[in-house]
């Protein structure tokens, strides 16, 4: 069954949150949804770019009180 995981990348800077996401993606199952929390504006733009490039599913980005929530689904 697909899981939802939160990756708390707050306080880190590019490419820290991306690398944390990739580390968790490697250990996840296809269909799992991963939500990265980041207060780094660069990561909020760069993570969706990376997801599109490598072929996972980009779900959404929302921002709340200076924290971006970037959600990705593992597809392969």
């Amino acid at each position, binding site marked *: 069954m697909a899981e939802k995981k939160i990756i708390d990348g707050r306080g880190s800077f590019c490419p820290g949150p991306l*690398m944390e996401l990739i580390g968790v993606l490697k250990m996840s199952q296809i269909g799992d949804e991963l939500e990265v929390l980041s207060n780094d504006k660069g990561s909020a733009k760069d993570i969706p770019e990376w997801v599109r*490039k490598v072929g996972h599913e980009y779900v959404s980005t929302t921002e709340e009180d200076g924290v971006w929530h970037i959600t990705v689904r593992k597809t392969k």
Partner: protein
Amino acid sequence: MAVEKICVVVVSGTRERLQMAAMVASVAAVSGIEVTIFLSMNSVPYFIKGASTDAPSEGSFGDLIVKKKAPDFKTLFRQAVELGDAKILPCSMALDIAGIEADTLEPFVGEPTGLASFLDAARDAQVWTF
């Protein structure tokens, strides 16, 4: 389709250059790009097991990297290897001159490599020098 390939040559021992090299190498490696990192000159001592990453800054930005707690360059290089299958090759000449034994280097660093082998790896690759 040809595999995209880059070689990152790191000769500097200053924080900004080590950081930028590590950023390029790690993000490229996890993006499906074949990455070979060649360490030489002043970069090599940082890759001795347990060596500090406290590199001198070239300017104020280097100090900000530390103050803001950006991921340190050695962590990013290790992630390039572990998450993206990058190869990190120390320059055999630099090891000889500095008197550093290969088995004292971090486990994510590969075999000492001479320029002839590196140039072969760099054929058909973009080369980024820091």
